[in-house]
């Protein structure tokens, strides 16, 4: 019994790490630019499709698919920034919801139009089976996703706090005019932020594709998870997204196992509301 619980918790942690990875891109643009990106889940979906195309056209696995998805999505991020975000950022929050929701529909149904509505899937053993040790069973694909997720979120955190690029980005986030006076170009910095955020999201998509099904509407399912993760962790806090992602992963698997899966999302939402009451700024957000 207790042994099953360990399996449940380990599974939850691995899943949580992936939640954290695809949420870190969202938290980055949300925190830096105060942009609510309703198309975020669809960025994950695009990453999954890139990985799938790489597999079907070139027979490449995650070694080829993941970096390519990162590159493609980073490009998409820059294009979206210059074509849309740069302008709606100046508008009210409602315009951002309007614009990014429209973008979500546009992306989702463009993919739908091209690939059709069928469920796709990568071959079961593309990353290499399942590890069993001490009675625990862990899928290699989930382990890979979890480990990369931890590394990338950690890397993002370092980038933001320890490099001059990070400082410049934060300076722009803080005060555009002041940053401009210091010789930093806000446009460039924000475009870079979008490239990083979308790239990380694409990477997450490519990794999730190895153990999840692929369908144009999958972004809806994942998008909501990302929103809750980011809000619980605190907008703009990459470590917050990591902790919140892990927490949500574990809570979901535990409550799914112990009290029934149909209530697991209720547990997460109630916990989230409870946190908001005591810490309106999220777990790691600052007041």
């Amino acid at each position, binding site marked *: 019994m207790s042994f099953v619980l360990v399996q449940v918790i380990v599974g939850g942690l691995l899943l949580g790490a992936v939640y954290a990875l695809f949420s870190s891109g969202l938290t980055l643009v949300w925190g830096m630019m105060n942009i609510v990106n309703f198309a975020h889940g669809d960025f994950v979906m695009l990453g999954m499709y890139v990985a799938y195309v790489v597999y079907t056209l070139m027979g490449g696995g995650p070694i080829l698919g993941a970096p390519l998805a990162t590159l493609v999505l980073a490009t998409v991020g820059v294009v979206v920034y210059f074509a849309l975000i740069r302008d709606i950022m100046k508008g009210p929050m*409602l315009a951002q919801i309007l614009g990014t929701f429209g973008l979500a*529909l546009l992306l989702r149904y463009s993919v739908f139009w091209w690939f059709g509505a069928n469920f796709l899937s990568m071959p079961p053993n593309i990353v290499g089976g399942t590890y069993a040790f001490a009675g625990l069973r862990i899928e290699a694909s989930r382990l890979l996703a979890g480990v990369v997720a931890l590394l990338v979120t950690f890397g993002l955190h370092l980038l933001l706090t320890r490099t001059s690029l990070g*400082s410049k980005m934060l300076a722009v986030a803080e005060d555009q005019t002041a940053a401009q006076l210091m010789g930093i170009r806000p446009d460039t910095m924000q475009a870079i932020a979008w490239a990083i955020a979308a790239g990380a999201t694409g990477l997450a998509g490519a990794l999730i594709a190895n153990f999840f099904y692929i369908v144009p509407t999958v972004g809806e399912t994942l998008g909501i998870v990302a929103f*809750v993760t980011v809000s619980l962790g605190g907008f703009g806090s990459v470590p917050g997204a990591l902790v919140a992602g892990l927490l949500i992963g574990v809570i979901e698997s535990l409550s799914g196992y112990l009290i029934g899966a149909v209530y697991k999302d209720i547990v997460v939402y109630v916990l989230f509301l409870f946190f908001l009451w005591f810490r309106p700024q999220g777990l790691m957000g600052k007041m």
Partner: protein
Amino acid sequence: MRRLIWLLVVAAVAIAYPLLLSSPFQQRLGALVLLYAIAASAWNIVGGYAGQVSVGHVVFFGCGAYAAMGSYAKFGLSPLLGIPGGIVLAVGLAAIIGVPTLRLSGHYFSMATIAVAETVRLIVTNTEWLGAAVGLSGPTVPRNIFDLSFLSSLPYYYLFLVVLVITLLITWWMANSRMGFYLRAIKDSERAARSLGAPASRTKLYAYMLSAALTSVAGALYAMMFGFVDPESGLGILISVKILIMAALGGAGLLFGPLVGAAILVPLEEISNSWLGGKGAGLTFVVYGAIIVLIARFQPGGLLSLFTGRSKSKIDTSKTDTSKTDTSKTDTSKTDTGAGHAP
């Protein structure tokens, strides 16, 4: 004077529409425009005037829809009798949700409303008495006129028109009362409004409750027209987003903004679905999404702001981000430490 003429033209068009375009589908399209205009106008009170972007308004919509269908399915009464119950339920819920969440700023408030709406949807989905996932149906064959189950959309159209006019009158009255004045002040800067003695929390809560009551009426009318409600169509988050988009597209915080948004988006959605949906290629939503993106990109203040002389720059300055001002202090320190590592 010009305003009055415009108003009369709009009123004349609204009254004459179903008589001029009299095919059943066109009449229904008109009724749907009015229905969504009611919901979006109700949302506008708290989302537009008070600047509190609620993305969970569907929970009040669902209160009305479930109360109307429940009064028929559970008690054999006319769905109309469910409306007061729905209002009471929505206002009570608004008070319970509003007190803790309205103190949250910006995105946190939006996220909290999403979480509440999703929680309610999940609870209803798992509640046998409320029909669980199967939902509740209204009277399929009307017993009498009070079942509001008509073949033609004409009665719905004029009923909705009356409710819309009432909603707009309430909004207009509120906007020009002391409450509207407070709300505008709060939207511009809550801190400043508070320091000048405006009862910010209470005003926001009243606006929220008023908006909830009207949204619940919209939900009840919706369920009566379609004769059915289930968790997805009565409490799904996409309905909130749809309502919000209509208000934002037409012009949030403007009296007629939501009506304009509904008058554009509802026909766009239904007609593009009628033309393109049957092809099964998803083109409906490609078109729909592209149009929304373009409007957000080129007219971020909503379409109506083109005409009302509210220039773009004015909307820019009225952009409130209390979350940003609140966090600015610590953010500075974060930037400072960051800059310390810069070469």
